[in-house]
């Protein structure tokens, strides 16, 4: 009897393993191996001179690539600062804006479905296409945004992407308001909130604003955390829009970490994969810190509920 049970358990484990294996294989092949590779090669010299054989920098110089990034490479410093700015801006502009839109749409006033779909459209278009659209909108001769900006402030340069000061905000504007996916996630969470809570609040004389503040927002916290992780990661990984709009220019003013990694490794004739991967390691660390911090914050909030 015991033997049959063990056999059954073994078969069950095998059955589960059969399903897990492909996923595990793909995880190790696509994520884990490159991650180890990136970490390992960041302590090497690996560029066009030795593409075939990366060379370990030696224990005395093990952090040379990282030291170079922080002391000599002005583009990396700009990229790091920009990426942190985009993380912050996404957190303080895109996420609150998505929450606001989700709250308004959840009231299901006339035309809410159309508004939701329109708000979602930029998120189902590829970011490359969005980049091209904004490239036209910023066109100095015929661009709609250029004309509008010039109407409001004639002193601003006509070519938004050609000046370091305005190019950063031009790039930021090309993605910051597109929180359709965030909005959808938040709306699904709002619809899961029991209606009894709102009915009780209404009986107690609460207005819509008070109901949102006292019921919806507190119950939305876990989803806001998820949305925050997704949105901040988008800010950290910003690439397509930059590649199409500015390629990091003018004068390196719109470099992001992702673009820096690409330019240093593949976009440069020096093919400095080691330096690019060192920047990649820093990007991974920032991403991990971001996710862990937000999750920690989220767990605290959950216990408060």
């Amino acid at each position, binding site marked *: 009897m015991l033997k049959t049970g063990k056999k059954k358990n073994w*078969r069950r484990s095998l*059955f589960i393993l*059969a*399903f897990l294996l*492909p996923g595990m294989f793909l995880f190790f092949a696509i994520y884990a191996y490159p991650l180890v590779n990136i970490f390992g090669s960041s302590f090497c010299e690996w560029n*066009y*001179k*030795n*593409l*075939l054989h990366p060379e370990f920098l030696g224990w005395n110089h093990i952090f040379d690539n990282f030291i170079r990034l922080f002391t*000599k490479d*002005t*583009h990396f410093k700009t990229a790091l600062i920009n990426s942190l700015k985009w993380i912050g801006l996404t957190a303080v502009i895109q996420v609150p804006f998505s929450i606001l839109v989700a709250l308004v749409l959840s009231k299901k006033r006339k035309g809410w479905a159309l508004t939701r779909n329109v708000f979602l459209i930029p998120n189902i278009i590829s970011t490359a296409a969005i980049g091209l659209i904004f490239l036209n909108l910023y*066109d*100095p*001769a015929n661009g709609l945004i250029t004309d509008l900006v010039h109407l409001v402030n004639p002193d601003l*340069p*006509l*070519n938004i*992407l*050609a*000046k*370091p000061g305005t*190019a950063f905000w031009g790039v930021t504007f090309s993605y910051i308001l597109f929180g359709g996916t965030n909005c959808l996630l938040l709306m699904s969470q709002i619809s899961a909130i029991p209606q009894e809570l709102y009915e009780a609040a209404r009986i107690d004389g609460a207005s819509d604003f008070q109901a949102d503040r006292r019921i919806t927002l507190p119950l939305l916290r876990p989803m806001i955390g998820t949305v925050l992780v997704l949105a901040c990661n988008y800010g950290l990984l910003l690439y397509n829009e930059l590649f199409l*709009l*500015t*390629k990091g*220019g*003018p*004068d*390196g003013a719109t470099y992001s970490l992702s673009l820096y990694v690409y330019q240093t490794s*593949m976009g*440069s*004739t*020096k*093919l400095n994969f080691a330096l690019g991967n060192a920047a990649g390691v820093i990007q991974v660390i920032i991403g991990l810190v971001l996710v862990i911090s937000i999750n920690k914050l989220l767990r605290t909030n959950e216990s408060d509920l």
Partner: protein
Amino acid sequence: MKRMLACILSLMLACGLLAGCQSKPAEESGESKDGTKPAAAAAEEKDGEELPTITFYHHYYQDDAVDAKAMRALFDEFAEMHKDEFIFKPVPVEGDPEAVYNKCIQEIASGSFPDIVETGGWNVVPAASEAGLIMDLKPYIDADPDFKAGVGVNYDQNLVDGKIYTVREQLETMGFWYNEDLFNKAGADTPDKWQTWDDFVAAFDKLKASPDVKTPVSLNQGWPTNIMFMAHLLGTQEGRDFIDTPLTTFDNDAFKGTVDFVAEHALSQIDTAYFGAADSESYRDDFLNGDAAMLFNGVWEASSFVGDGLKIDPAVVKPAVFPTNENGKHAAIMSASCGYVISDKLSDAQKEAAVAFVKYMCSPEVSERIFTEVLAMPAYLGLDYDQYINDESADPVVRKLAEACKQCAQADYQTCAMSSLWGSDVEMEIGGKYAAMHDGSKTADQIVAELDETLN
């Protein structure tokens, strides 16, 4: 039953996983998109004997583009001509030349190199030669005077440590184009009368002051400004010495002089609306719309001055080369850049076939077709441009191209493009400084100091 279900599901999972592994692309396996085999591959089977095979990757994939069609026809004709000696398989790589470059880099990283590639200016030589994967063409060129004549400026420009790893059959040749009508309206001397850069400045000022001219020139933070920058640097002996010296620092009086000149007499003189971002093509549109009096671009632009939608009269568009600081002498940019690169891992028979192909592409006959069909300036400098200029029945585009090519070929001083001379990294860094040169926010010394930082 459960056991059977488990087996079926596991089998399906395995099949699904394997189905995800894509088979070799049709082009690489020698089949065309419709599944039929090309003539060369069919010949291989028909003869039944082992012929050397070389696969050639290029970027001329566009179905409709005139130049791509003409280039593919040349490749196919070569394959057909030699079908009894070797199998030559041209494989178009979809995407711009960067896609071919990326393919090469991937292969280099795994210790191999494609049989032969055409990288369209993307310089794969430093990485491939350091890995010892590509062959030196110099012995073949030295041994054959016709080949040497065919490669033209490649012989000097692509000579690295006594070796020539790449040859390109068409050159990036650049002077500029001007709208004669706008010059006349502004009362400015046309470029054919310019003796020195001072004449350029005088004409520029008149063009700027003229109500008939919206802008003397339209620029961006890259290509067209780079052309003017290099041309100005070429205008003095100190500048030419700087160009000829391996780059270790930008702290050079001629370089600083060029930074100041381009900033003071071009960039700061044009409105922001005519100063685009690095990739912006609006500088071309501004000229074609009749807004700009000059267009700093290559000879290939000749093909743009035709068509119904053109807002300027093609008859008023003329080619020119840049002045220098020496009275009556002119400067142009003629860049061989990176083109055909051959793997060193091929057998002797394959190498012979690959070299025969490069030689064919640089031959006078093919050069003439590159000029008339691809509408580019061939590397072969023996072409008689006068025969096209004087032939009134010739295609107007070809005549205009011939005029531009002749002027550049006869210019007193020539150098290669900024990206070929110093690499695309340096080109990008210099391009990044144009914004500061446009608004005057940085001095030449500051710019030089910042550029020097990037060299370390």
